[in-house]
């Protein structure tokens, strides 16, 4: 049975692929595709696609399972009597922390929103100067930015920890926000995008009309780089939303959802329903942001290459 389904699917995919070829392209292009090759690559895609998505689907389904279905041996993939009880039990699980779940959710949303907005703004201002002005040292700076793409907050954990502790930023929201704003991915992507999408002629025309750099940035450049802004929004939000600071936040009322998640998931199989429920809650916002920004992201990433 499974084989038949797989074959049907393959057939359909193959049809689509060859369909696109014959409509869109010349005869000579179709010549470069073999049937056997098509078959293998559709199989490969289906397998990998299942590997990517099945764990997530399983997580969503498990979060709706009542307790007795969680304890069934062997575990079932599907859920027969869906219930919201895992979600409703979440606030109660946290009662020993004396901080309501809503506070963690607020912290997460607040920090992610503030960081994302500042990240887009700061990165695009810097990228504009680096790509379209003639300030001194911009080449060196961009080279540094490009090499700094290598270093994540994880590799810089120790010296950043020292800086936080000397500036007394431990146990403040700054720990979440500031290091991320220094991440160079935003400036890098934005600068590459501006080089390709903003013609100098437009800026020169604005100059002749008397516009300064502030004016050019705000009324000409920013509206033109909206796709790239959406991209930075996605990456910024995704990273900050799932960040779990290491040793810099002790005050429970300043912690975010990933901290709750690691507490609940430490509870073992009896709490797996609730743990899955938290995971699902964590999954939703990044997915929403991606769905909103998706077409812009795929458009603007085109300029991301590193030229050496």
């Amino acid at each position, binding site marked *: 049975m499974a084989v038949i389904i797989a074959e049907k699917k393959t057939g359909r995919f193959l049809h689509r692929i060859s369909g696109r070829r014959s409509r869109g392209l010349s005869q000579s292009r179709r010549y470069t595709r073999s049937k056997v090759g098509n078959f293998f690559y559709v199989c490969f895609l289906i397998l990998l696609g299942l590997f990517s998505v099945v764990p997530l689907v399983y*997580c969503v389904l498990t979060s709706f399972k009542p307790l007795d279905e969680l304890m069934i041996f062997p575990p079932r993939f599907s859920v027969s009597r869906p219930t919201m009880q895992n979600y409703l039990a979440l606030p109660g699980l946290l009662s020993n922390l004396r901080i309501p779940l809503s506070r963690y959710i607020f912290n997460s949303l607040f920090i992610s929103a503030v960081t994302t907005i500042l990240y887009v703004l700061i990165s695009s201002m810097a990228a504009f100067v680096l790509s379209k002005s003639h300030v001194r040292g911009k080449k060196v700076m961009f080279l540094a930015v490009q090499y700094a793409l290598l270093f994540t907050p994880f590799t810089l954990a120790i010296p*950043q920890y020292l800086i936080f502790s000397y500036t007394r930023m431990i146990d403040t929201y700054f720990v979440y926000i500031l290091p991320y704003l220094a991440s160079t991915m935003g400036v890098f992507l934005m600068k590459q995008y501006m080089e390709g999408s903003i013609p100098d002629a437009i800026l020169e025309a604005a100059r002749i009309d008397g516009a300064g750099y502030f004016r050019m940035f705000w009324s000409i450049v920013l509206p033109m780089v909206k796709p790239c802004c959406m991209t930075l929004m996605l990456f910024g939000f995704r990273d900050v939303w799932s960040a779990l600071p290491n040793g810099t936040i002790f005050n429970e009322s300043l912690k975010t959802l990933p901290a709750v998640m690691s507490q609940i998931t430490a509870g073992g199989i009896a709490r797996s329903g609730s743990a899955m429920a938290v995971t699902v809650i964590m999954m939703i916002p990044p997915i929403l942001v991606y769905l909103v920004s998706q077409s812009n992201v795929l458009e603007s990433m085109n300029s991301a290459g590193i030229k050496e």
Partner: protein
Amino acid sequence: MKNITLGGKKERFRDNLQCYIMLAPFALLFLIFLVLPIIASFVLSFFEFDMVSTPRFTGFSHYFRMLFDDEVFLTTAKNTLIFAVITGPAGFLLSFVLAWFLNEFRPFTRTVLSFMFYCPALVGNAYYIWQVAFSNDSYGYINSLLLSMGFITEPLNWLRDAAYTMPIVIMVQLWMSMGVSFLANISGLQNIGQDMYEAGAIDGIRNRWQELWYITLPSMRHMLLFSAVIQISSAFSVSQLPIALAGYPSVSNSVDTIVSYLSDAGTVRYEMGYASAISVVLFLIMIVTRIVVGKLINKVGD
């Protein structure tokens, strides 16, 4: 942009001022949270420093201790290298190959499929699922599957057995590795002009492999370097994933990485000097890898 400055001295001054003001927020943050930490690690690596007593100069002793006297460091370094050598190139190739395959589909199918592949990276901390899947009792999904099919007779302790932890962590890391570089590849591939392929077909390109080597890869060179940098950066900084799955320290340090070891040395044992020396070694390894990979990629399609 050349010669954008028109007008006299006063306007030039205003322009420069505005440029510096716009650059300032990022430049300051970059200096404080990236450049300063790198310099500070380098300097501190020559000192004994616990954040309470005054730093004491110790020369290269931290580096000697690391290489000759610290078995745990050598184990974590070995783990990190194994990890990077497998997940780096595999993640890099997979993100390109998948994007290349997806490029053949219609826009709608492509959008849906790329969402599917991107999902594990997008949702961030979802690796908890694997903790349940590999949990040690018979309720763990993998255990129960193998038990009911008769491959094993009693549940295996996946995440507490040094033989399994490394392959599991590598698998989950690959599961999450279709991220930024995957999106960049998809986007880059869509923008190679169709006329290039048509010209190639006329010039005698016979199959998709020739097309890949002579047209696609050379057009994607810059994008490949970007994607390689992203993969290097994530492969060497892995620490949260093995800690979440196998704990820290994991069984006989089988999946502890340099980054998890240095945060332990720093934020738990307060051996800041030693932790800094480890960071410096890590930075050097990453930069050298980055330069070598850059050279290799520039040869692609020649």
